[in-house]
């Protein structure tokens, strides 16, 4: 187990904007940290740099306190799980699990023992003599996971490992990953573009945008106290409502209010905005109501059994103390 620390990490490609701009990040021993952001934000680049699949233009990477710049992936003692599973098609499951050990010159008896142990941990013992193409997506990802586990590396790297799976399987494997992390207590660095996945899995989330770190913190903090408008809009579905601050008489800049922090009222009230219902979306447990006000559209959460229809006149009011304020540059303002 080990800490991972990135110090002023920069990666540039000739003729393109920097993929990574001076990213500094400390990942604690045994932590589950997610790197999140839209595609092209530099999250996969960061993962490749930690793995040693790519070298930074400048900056230092330390694993367990030791500088690993210039070391090959195998010398860094990290394992990686890929989005496409990247299993070796010509080897059966046993061969796939054994491969990293064979490369590490582990004795045959030890390989056998570790493969059996890993297969038991993941419940794939009965698949050991199958080829990857004979496995379902979920089984393949379990084998890929096993191939990472079998080496007992100090750091696990995940590159969108669940993106290729369907929704039901994804949430099942999400649970397994979380349990696995609790069992192993190893350092997990997890890349995803799925904010919900990051929220449910992580101890901490690092949000990247265009190669720059926007905010690092526990999921709750990221959600409730986003550092800027970008982070606020990236997390949460439906998206946070952003309105001009003037609408509430709060001066310049903009305000953000989470849809579940907006009250729907049948009549005028102090601090409420008047509007017309544009859209009602029932999700089963609740209804998301889009209200057209004079300044912007606002999404509010209503009860599932709410008797409301497009065209109705309603009032929306943010819950007390739940307004986030952003200045003209989009940065969050305290207070």
């Amino acid at each position, binding site marked *: 187990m080990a800490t991972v620390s990135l110090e002023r990490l920069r990666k540039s490609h000739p003729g393109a904007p920097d993929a990574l701009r001076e990213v500094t990040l400390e990942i604690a021993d045994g932590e589950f940290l997610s790197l999140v952001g839209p595609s092209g934000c530099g999250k996969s680049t960061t993962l*490749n740099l930690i*793995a*040693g*699949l790519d070298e930074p233009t400048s900056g230092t990477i330390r694993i367990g306190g030791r500088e690993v710049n210039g070391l*090959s*992936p*195998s010398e860094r003692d*990290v*394992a*990686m799980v*890929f*989005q*496409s599973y*990247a*299993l*070796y*098609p*010509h080897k059966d499951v046993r061969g796939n699990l054994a*491969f*990293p050990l064979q*490369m*590490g010159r582990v004795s045959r008896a030890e390989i056998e023992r570790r493969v059996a142990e890993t297969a038991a941990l993941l419940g794939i013992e009965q698949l050991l003599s199958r080829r990857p193409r004979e496995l379902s997506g979920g089984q393949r990802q379990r084998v890929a996971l096993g*191939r990472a586990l079998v*080496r007992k590396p100090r750091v696990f*790297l995940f590159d969108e490992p669940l993106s290729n799976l369907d929704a039901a399987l994804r949430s099942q494997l999400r649970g397994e990953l979380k349990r696995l992390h609790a069992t192993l207590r190893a350092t997990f660095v997890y890349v995803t573009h799925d904010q919900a996945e990051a929220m449910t899995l992580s101890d901490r989330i690092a949000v990247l945008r265009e190669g720059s770190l926007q905010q690092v913190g526990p999921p709750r903090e990221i959600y409730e106290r986003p550092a800027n408008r970008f982070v606020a809009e990236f997390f949460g579905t439906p998206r946070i409502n952003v309105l001009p601050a003037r609408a509430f008489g709060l001066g310049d800049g903009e305000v953000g209010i989470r849809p579940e922090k907006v009250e729907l009222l049948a009549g005028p009230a102090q601090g409420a905005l008047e509007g017309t219902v544009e859209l009602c979306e029932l999700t089963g447990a609740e209804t998301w109501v889009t209200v057209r006000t004079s300044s912007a559209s606002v999404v509010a959460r209503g009860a599932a059994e709410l008797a409301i229809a497009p065209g109705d006149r309603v009032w929306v009011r943010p819950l007390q103390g739940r307004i986030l304020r952003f200045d003209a540059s989009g940065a969050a303002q305290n207070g």
Partner: protein
Amino acid sequence: MKRALGTLAVLAFFLGPLAWQALTSVWPEAELTRPLPRSFTLASYAGLHGTFARAVLNSLVVAAGTTALCLSVGASAAFAIAKLDLPGKRLLLGGALAISMFPPIATVSPLYLALRALHLRDTLAGLVLPYATFALPLTLWLLTSFFRELPDELYRAARVDGCTPWQAFVHVFLPLSWPALATSAILVFIFSWNELLYALTFLSTPERRTIPVAIALFAGEHVEPWGQIAAASVIATLPLALLTLFFQRRIVSGLTAGAVKE
């Protein structure tokens, strides 16, 4: 009916000459002027000397040597071009293509001088080298497109699992590439098996002649031994035909590798 006629026409066009050659090889010498033979004989085959057996052996050595050289150089180069961060890889591929555009006849004299300087003139190794340079571009392009088809994540996985780039090539990519290797091997083999110009120019000792040279030199000043030429051609064609039949699916899938997404 119309389709059957069309098929027949195509078959006749491609197989006709081969059939005629096979027929000629069993046609008695004395009846060659007749429109069709009255009897068949294996005399032409019996008349082939030990020197022709030697030529078959020489051809086998040269073709196998060229194939081995081409594949070992071509596969590792193609892997590096397709999967590694190699500066100038486009230049390399383009250069290989440009080289293959040279008409062989234009290179005969410089090659002759080069081989003489290397003391490789009139040796089988002296044929393998120029053959390989001519067959390598095709191998390189074929294998590069094949390796590009294999996902990059496979390479990254191998690296993280502790492979050096060379080990990733040997343990992961080579075992996966045998369809493309088989295709390249057959094409290179056929090319070297059939080559006449260089073999005729660079070899002078009769014992080192390859099949095409041997057949070309069957004709004497006063005789054209058609029966023997035909018999020798059949013997030369047979292994290729069998090889190709055996691997034909592989060849087709190898040639179209990279053409369409699966």
